[in-house]
């Protein structure tokens, strides 16, 4: 009896030490080659929400460019690429990074910033949808002088050649005061003619209705007349991060072609996040 007791107590004492318990290691890199340099940044890129969701952002623009060129080889290339600011994440896998210093950008880090791995779909939008889309993107912007408390992830970054002029002093729904998609100047207000279309590449998250775009895009993702095409590579479905990585490698691979933020969204009377320190 006392021997049994001893055995029990011993068993408890030796019970698999809590040290045996292992949990998922969050810090494991997402890609096989996290150390490879995909390109160079000409300046520090800030990842805090106001910089990703309330201002132009070099990495957001890079991704939008990559999307826009995803279907370049096809019969129906995109005229415009967009990515929502909420797709740029600062959380990282285990350490939050608020800034990526200028200089070489590592593949592992790029994939931590664009970590959702959405597919990219190129689709025709009507002019009305295009304008509504930018109105929705601008709806969450704060007026100049207000603190940027909770910037909306629905804010859109756009590809090269596109300029969106926003006036935050105007009511929500009519904040877009100028819009140019490549050579095409979009008249405002938009024309209702459904035959006027713009070919736009975006993450399937947005097209599927994420961030409140569902009421604007409706069934565009499945409407064959809109010719939705999902970007793919030889290995299968291309993801937003992979496309961006490839675009960075082919366009910003050296220091003199380093990625630099451009003023594609022009803000009027809008709050802007302060840029810290020296540029």
């Amino acid at each position, binding site marked *: 009896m006392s021997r049994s007791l001893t055995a029990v107590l011993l068993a408890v004492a030796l019970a698999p030490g*809590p040290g*045996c*318990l292992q949990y*998922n290691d*969050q810090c494991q890199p997402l890609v*096989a080659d996290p150390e490879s340099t995909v390109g160079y940044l000409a300046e520090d890129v800030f990842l805090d929400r106001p910089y990703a969701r309330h201002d132009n952002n070099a990495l957001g623009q890079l991704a939008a460019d990559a999307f826009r060129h995803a279907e370049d080889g096809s019969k129906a290339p995109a005229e415009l690429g967009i990515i929502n600011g909420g797709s740029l994440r600062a959380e990282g896998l285990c350490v939050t990074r608020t800034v990526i210093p200028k200089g070489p950008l590592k593949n592992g880090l790029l994939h931590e910033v664009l970590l959702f791995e959405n597919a990219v779909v190129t689709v025709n939008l009507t002019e009305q949808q295009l304008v509504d889309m930018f109105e929705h993107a601008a709806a969450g912007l704060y007026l100049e002088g207000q603190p940027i408390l909770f910037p909306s992830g629905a804010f859109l970054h756009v590809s090269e050649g596109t300029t969106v002029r926003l006036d935050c002093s105007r009511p929500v729904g009519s904040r877009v005061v100028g819009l140019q998609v490549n050579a095409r100047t979009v008249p405002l207000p938009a024309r209702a003619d459904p035959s006027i279309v713009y070919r736009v590449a975006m993450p399937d998250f947005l097209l599927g209705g994420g961030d409140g775009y*569902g009421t604007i895009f409706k069934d565009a993702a499945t409407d064959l007349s809109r010719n939705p095409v999902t970007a793919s590579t030889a290995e299968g479905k291309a993801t937003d991060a992979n496309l961006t990585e490839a675009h960075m490698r082919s366009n910003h691979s050296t220091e003199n072609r380093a990625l630099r933020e451009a003023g594609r969204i022009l803000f009027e009377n809008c709050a802007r996040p302060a840029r810290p320190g020296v540029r």
Partner: protein
Amino acid sequence: MTVKSVLTRSRPFLLALVFLTALPVLAQEQATLLHNAPEQAAPGVALVVDGVLTGTQRIMRMVIRYRGPGEPYSETPLELQYGDLYRGIIPASSLTPPGVEYYVEGFTPSGERVPLFKSATRPARVVVVGQVTSTRTPISSRTAEPRTVEPEPAPRAEPPSRNERTGRRSEPTVKAEPAPKAEPTPKAERKPEPVRKASGSDDAMEALTAELPPDPGSTASRPSAVRPARSTESEQPEPERSELEEDLALYTAEDTLALATRHEEKVKKVPAIAASFGREQIRALGARTVADVLDVMPGLTLSRDVQGFHRVAIRGLRNDAEVLFLLNGQRLNNFFDGKALMNLPVENLERIEVIRGPGSALYGAGAFLGVVNIVTQRSEGLLAAVSGGGFPKLDDRLATTFDGHLSGAHSFGRLKLFGDADVWHQVGDSAPIETDALSADTLAQKLREPLEPSGTTQDDRFLLNLGLGFGYELSSESHLQVSARLLSEERSALVGLFDTVGPGSRLGWQVFLGDITYEHELNDRVRLRARLYGDQQSTDRLFQIGPDGFRTGPDDNQLFPDGMLEQTRVTVRSLGTSVDSDVSLFEGNRLSLGAGAELQMLGAYGYETNYTLDSRRRPALTTPEGVVDMLTLADGAASRRLTFSAFAQDQWTVVEPLTLTFGVRADVTQLPSVDNANAITGTQLVPSVNPRVGLVFSPTDSLVLKLLYGRAFRPPTLQELLETIPNTYYNQGRFEGNPALLPAVVNTLEAGADLIQVSGESRVRIRANAFLESFSNPIAAVDTSGNIVPVRNRELGVLVYGVEGEARLEASKRATTWINASLFRAEDQGLPANHRFLTDTPQARFNAGVSMPIGDFINFDVVVRAGAERRNNTRSVLELIRRYKIPAYGLITAQVRTEPIGDHFELAVVVQNVFDSDLRDDVPRPDRMPGLIPREGVSAFLTLRARN
């Protein structure tokens, strides 16, 4: 080639690269370590310091310099994890209250020390709160200083390859990558997990148990053993059992269990890993509800979700539809969502039986992770109990609870009437929820003050449980039993629908159960039973999203004076019949045969909101556009399910010590058929065959060995198949039904040993078992977008393995102690090796209890429950970045109760969660509700029991 060699080879190259790139700008920019020091840390838990090194200054290596109270500074290295991420660990021994200080220094190539994060004069200070040993149980504190740096032998996963990564992120059903190549972690100390784990030495396990040592030879003396075969449903404690025998039975305390074989048997001998808690044991636990009892069973963990449902996890997996709940043998799980209204008061219960694992081939669909049978008291006489108490509130008042219970049975010749009734009213505990998804909005809209929490938990509940029935001896061979039950619950949501506090939420649930059983003994060897049963369940769940007066925008129709509301009303019914028979083919052999048919159907389904898809107010609750009407889908085919089943099980005692069980169950289940576009076209019948083999061997009277194999399946619930609700900005976390879901299947292998030692007055029972469960096509909800949770079959399956141990010592009838522990790992095979663990329930549990007499009339009981840290699963990238940890916990219940006073009365005072430990449960969105779900705090109740 091993990972190691890759790393070894590439590291010099990387260093060289870093060196070259750094040269031109040498020392231009000061290096710093980007790191946020935590404000607080737990005592005795190693602190992990992660940081990112920035700047162009060359740093050869980095060290953390730290000191605990009264210590000089010590150093520990920071190691490169990958990229620019470094990690170091401050050993647990330095984390003692009041705090620890640290800073990080780097060494330049010239050997100079430079500060990278804080400095010796201004170190980071982390407050260490609490006492190192505060909540530990005596036993766990004995478990030794866990410590620190025991080399962690666990294999370290290879960094996922590109392919694996794709698999994980976008297409969870892609192949699993090859098994991780094991590589000894170069520096074991770097693995933080084991260290943290260790610190919760009290986390580790849970155990308790149930059955006590049998008196060798008592077997024959117990009526139930002698009587052939009583069905679960009809089980009344045998009337012929005398008071003395009852005492003896309790003393030797081997409880009966009908669940595993449909026959009452000693737990020791049943071919399943089973536990049964009798009335006395339930009382000694200080338990008030079924959930209290289940939480101390080895392998089980109870948690609550934001909506306030109690959820049972068995062996590391938690799924409402996978634990079959029976009330007197009749299923309680709802056909629509698989949830069961099971958290009944225990006062009227005869016992609670649990099979862990799919051990029984007898119960068919749903008996998947385990089976719980709740058996009400139907013995002759009258039992009554009243109880009152509650939770202290902030303003020194009491959030009261009152409950009353009555059960009894009386025979009039051949007729026996029995019934039970529970009434339960509680105001419920209330704890602040600092942050929810709308915290920012409610603050901006001035719906609360800046320092006020977003809301509080609400836990009021009214429960009515009425059961009534009669048994009639038609003749000496045949017996008829009719029973009916009404369960009605009305309560608030603990938090709300999803990630937002909804104070106005009301959840109603009504259950009607009816059962007619006819038993006939054809002769000594054959016994027949026919059963007709039915039930109806109605749920009405009204959720408020956000507070009264909430605005979704500036317009008039964007103001919600009563909050945003949504209401789901579901009615389901089922009707079934079964016939089974027990045949005693020859001495020592018993064959059970049975067949059944059941129709389950959705009677009504309604989903209404008071807001439009673009979050504007509607004049009244209205069904929004886009809601699928399940009743009319494919002409209603999808809302009905017909099941046919047949089983045979033979239990054969080959020689006295060896009993073999062979069983097989075949089910045909009607499930929707879908076309290529996942649209439902009709129904199909899905067959499933589930065998079961058991071997029970008792080489001596004191030792029983079991080896068991079983297989079970569960079809998807209607909700998992069909319910799809349009997504809007404010109602997040929706189900997105998947009509193409396949039934999940589990194969289980279990081995167990029971040892019973009797020495004079005292007895000790030790039981240990190991199990391996392999799930194919498990149905899991995976958070891939944050708004909608698609339900999928995980094609590569889930593997769970673990051990459970229990011990119980009885020094006398009133002096007992028990302990149980369980440890298990659940691995989702479809994920990369480093994200494979499913850890949203504690992987280790430990329970213990002591009952001791204080004088002749008072008994004192203490129960300790402890659970390991929990973390969220990371089956998708979203889940990955919403990382959370729920700390280990230890809860203590203490009770003082009297022996019967004047043979009729008993008084008990129980205090639950004595030290008001801050137990918390997981939330669906830890990024929006960082405080998790607060659980019940300290509470006290006085109970008076009476019997005639």
